[in-house]
């Protein structure tokens, strides 16, 4: 039985976790380790649980250290730093790594304040321990934003503890002790020593509070480009990913799920499957008991699982083909949600949905009265009195995350404890659920975080972890649950299907007097009522509606924004043209208004920073330069996840098809930790945006996905990606915000606007390539 998941409240969850973390960090500084973190530390020191998967453990940057030669005597100074007597300095990365490069950037922040030689630092993925290491959540572009201050404080506190230890030993005032690159000095007496010599003593000193942090101008690690600490392991194919994990006696499990949403398991015959080589067991399993109160990320699309367990992945894949399964339609069900927004019931409708009927239904709902989200002035009257009204409707399909590493998780559950290893964006969110489902206390559950082969939001959800745990419990053995690509693509938790109608009213002098957005979706809408151009137009109305569905959805890189930016930024482009204005100048005029005389309350964006990225991209792209006239140029800008992004897309024709040859990107995310890696992430977001705008989309017929693998689901390929993407950052000293999501949404709008120039017509329905006629 499918359940609807709300992706839109992910931001508020993150915000709450963020606030709790701040409180926790303060508290943590005053107390010693909890029993639980002590337990976890001893496990780590013994290394017993990690021997089979070196990828989870250690790395060396300078090539002189290897994992085997690393000593085990570490003095822990704050939760993030460990130093040996021989002055090997290890920094723990607290947050799950899914390609945003936190394994490098977060330890860089610690190293900066600790004052150590980055090239000699050893970095290790931290254990899952929210008490000691904070929220440990990757999503909402929050990794750097939420860890920036705590990690600086941890580095500065540890440096101070080492200084105190040296001062005590040398009998000198702590104020006279200085540091440089992992060394301590007392200039007057000529005394000096390594951090390692004082680490043992320092680890016994209480963690000080309120230590002065470095001036950002004096940074020498942060703000300079550093290579990915896992680079060598990646290019040599070392085991890093959950899919690579193995241990003695581990079995492989796969799940046969219905091939259509709206169906469930009726009966099965596994006689032939059980005869296949390597097959151990075939059984059904219920994911959640009736009436189970689902927490926010307790996703599951199919509640009755048909599980095949065997020795190897290939054997299980093969044996699945011999299953004889009968499916039956689901009835309408009610899911009890205990998570976000308090306890409530969510209706999951029965029926087999198809894209064509969904589109028709959306068009029908778009005409009905909707829920008002924000209203400024008197938009009804303004539209009534308008000299001219422009109205446009935009549509976008379900999107599958398609992480290159399909979902998988290792679980070894016994009566006493559970060991779970794999890729997850938020182990702290899934642990309470596993605890409840397995009836084990949280301190008996160990979750180890593997490097993720992509996440894009999908790996914030819990279904595959819960499934793995239940399967291991049932078979009483260590198992790895593996999704095939087809399982992964057809499971659900998609980016919702969206539509929005935008209207603008102009007076006789072509002034913008009213703006109206009415957005809907299956099963959620995307409207952000308090985002630009709210605040810049006197008469403004934002409305929404939703259509329930049994197709499950979830957060997808920049949830909601990834559609809003496409629709709104295309609409503003068309509006500017109608008003006879340059599209960048038009946006800047609106932003000027929003800054000087903002309309309404709760405008989410900073008009100056928004204008800042537009001005930067205008300059960098040579927006008005004659030599750039040969390109079909499209511009778009957007604010989301606390950062600002603008792109200029330069399109040409290649083999009679539109091709984005060049992109200029401007970002404002405050301080950039690791510039080259940040550029890489923006370039990736641009490629991802072009790909999804032009080709992305999952359609359904009678509940079944029409794309089940990469032969039907079109992904952008190297040949289709731009030749250059030039990335510029607004230089400021503002505390860093996120970068994984913000550059993604406006790409869609910029591509749409460039397509108009290139093809001579506007594109309103994603993926745009479906409407290409070959020649423009």
């Amino acid at each position, binding site marked *: 039985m499918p359940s609807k998941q709300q992706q839109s409240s992910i931001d508020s969850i993150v915000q709450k976790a963020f606030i709790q973390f701040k409180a926790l960090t303060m508290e943590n500084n005053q107390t010693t380790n909890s029993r639980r973190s002590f337990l976890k530390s001893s496990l780590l020191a013994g290394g017993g649980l990690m021997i089979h998967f070196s990828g989870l453990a250690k790395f060396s940057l300078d090539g002189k250290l290897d994992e085997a030669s690393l000593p085990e005597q570490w003095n822990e100074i704050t939760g993030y730093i460990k130093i040996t007597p021989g002055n090997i300095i290890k920094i723990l990365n607290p947050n799950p790594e899914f*390609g*945003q*490069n936190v394994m490098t950037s977060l330890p860089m922040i610690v190293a900066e304040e600790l004052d150590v030689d980055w090239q000699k630092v050893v970095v290790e993925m931290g254990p899952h321990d929210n008490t000691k290491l904070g929220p440990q959540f990757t999503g909402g572009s929050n990794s750097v934003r939420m860890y920036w201050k705590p990690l600086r404080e941890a580095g500065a506190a540890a440096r101070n503890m080492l200084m105190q230890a040296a001062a005590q030993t040398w009998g000198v005032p702590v104020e006279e002790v200085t540091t440089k690159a992992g060394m301590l000095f007392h200039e007057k007496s000529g005394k000096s020593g390594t951090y390692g010599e004082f680490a043992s003593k320092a680890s016994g000193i209480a963690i000080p509070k309120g230590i002065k942090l470095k001036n950002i101008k004096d940074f020498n690690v942060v703000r300079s480009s550093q*290579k*990915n600490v*896992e*680079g*060598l392991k*990646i*290019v*040599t*194919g*070392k085991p*890093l*990913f959950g*899919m*690579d994990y*193995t241990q003695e006696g581990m079995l492989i499990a796969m799940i046969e799920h219905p091939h259509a949403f709206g169906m469930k398991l009726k009966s099965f015959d596994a006689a032939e499957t059980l005869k296949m*080589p390597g097959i151990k067991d075939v059984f059904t399993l219920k994911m959640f008991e009736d009436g189970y109160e689902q927490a926010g990320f307790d996703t599951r699309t199919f509640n009755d699982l048909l599980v095949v367990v065997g020795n*190897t*992945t*290939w*054997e299980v*894949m*093969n044996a699945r083909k011999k299953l004889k399964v009968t499916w039956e339609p689901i009835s309408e069900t009610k899911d009890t949600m205990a998570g976000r927004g308090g306890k409530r019931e969510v209706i999951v409708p029965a029926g087999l949905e198809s894209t064509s009927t969904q589109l028709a239904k959306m068009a029908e709902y778009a005409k009905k009265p909707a829920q008002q989200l924000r209203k400024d002035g008197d938009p009804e009257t303004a539209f009534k009195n308008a000299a001219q009204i422009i109205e446009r409707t935009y549509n976008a399909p379900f999107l599958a995350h*398609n*992480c*290159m*590493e*399909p979902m998988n998780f290792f679980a070894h559950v016994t009566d006493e404890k559970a060991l779970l290893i794999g890729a997850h964006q938020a182990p702290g969110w899934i642990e309470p659920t596993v605890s409840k489902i397995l009836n084990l206390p949280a301190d008996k559950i160990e979750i180890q975080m593997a*490097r*993720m*082969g*992509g*996440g*894009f939001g999908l790996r914030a959800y819990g279904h595959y972890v819960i499934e793995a745990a239940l399967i291991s419990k049932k078979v009483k053995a260590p198992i790895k649950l593996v999704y*095939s*690509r087809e399982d992964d693509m057809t499971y659900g938790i998609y980016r919702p299907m969206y539509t929005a109608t935008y209207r603008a009213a102009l007076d006789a002098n072509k002034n913008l007097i009213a703006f109206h957005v009415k957005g809907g979706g299956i099963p959620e809408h995307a409207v952000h009522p308090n985002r630009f151009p709210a605040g810049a137009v006197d008469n403004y109305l934002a409305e929404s509606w939703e259509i329930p569905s049994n197709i499950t959805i979830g957060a997808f890189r920049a949830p909601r924004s990834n559609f809003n930016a496409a629709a709104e930024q295309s609409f503003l482009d068309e509006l500017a043209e109608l008003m006879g204005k340059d599209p960048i100048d038009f946006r800047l005029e609106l932003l000027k208004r929003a800054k000087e005389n903002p309309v309404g309350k709760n405008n989410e964006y900073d008009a100056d920073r928004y204008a800042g990225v537009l001005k930067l991209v205008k300059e960098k792209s040579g927006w008005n330069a004659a030599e750039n006239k040969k390109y079909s140029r499209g511009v778009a800008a957007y604010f989301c996840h606390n950062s600002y992004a603008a792109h200029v897309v330069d399109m040409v024709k290649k083999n009679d098809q539109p091709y984005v040859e060049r992109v200029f990107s401007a970002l404002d995310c405050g301080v950039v930790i690791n510039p080259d*890696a940040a550029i*890489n*992430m923006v*370039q*990736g*977001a*641009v*490629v*991802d945006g072009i790909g999804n705008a032009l080709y992305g989309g999952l359609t359904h017929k009678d509940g079944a996905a029409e794309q089940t*693998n*990469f*032969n039907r689901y079109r*992904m*952008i*390929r*190297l*040949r289709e*990606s*731009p*030749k*250059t*993407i030039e990335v510029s950052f607004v230089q400021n000293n503002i505390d860093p915000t996120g970068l994984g999501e913000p550059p993604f949404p406006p790409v869609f709008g910029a591509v749409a606007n460039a397509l108009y120039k290139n093809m001579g017509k506007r594109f309103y329905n994603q993926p745009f390539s479906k409407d290409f006629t070959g020649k423009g």
Partner: protein
Amino acid sequence: MAIYNLKINGQTKQVDVDPATPVLWVLREHLNMPGTKYGCGVSMCGACTIHLNGAAVRSCQLPISAIGSREITTIEGLSEKGDHPVQKAWLEHDVAQCGYCQTGQIMTAAALLKANPNPTEEQIDAAMTGNLCRCGTYLRVRDAIKTAAKQH
């Protein structure tokens, strides 16, 4: 089940598996060589790319029974210390984001440069277009190949 003596990375390895088992799974689950990745199982993503007598092939649909005496090279055997010109270029350009597809990208790129030490931009595009990267590192893949070509 059948016994196969395979030449992998300059060594002979013996496995006893079903003849239809794809090389991908033999490497990953029978020979403990996880550098070759499963991405799609239908030769559409390139994550499972290996070399067969020096040419890049997808291993996810290649049955072990079809190998015969041909020599297999995997990412684990491309170089001893990760210092093949393509691997070095990958590190220099810091290509990876999530990293999952990169071993397949590197194997395709290494085979391209072996066959064609100075590929044009179009030849790089053509050779690499079968390898998906969900994170969108394609521009750096191109740049790294150009750097590696200079050192080849």
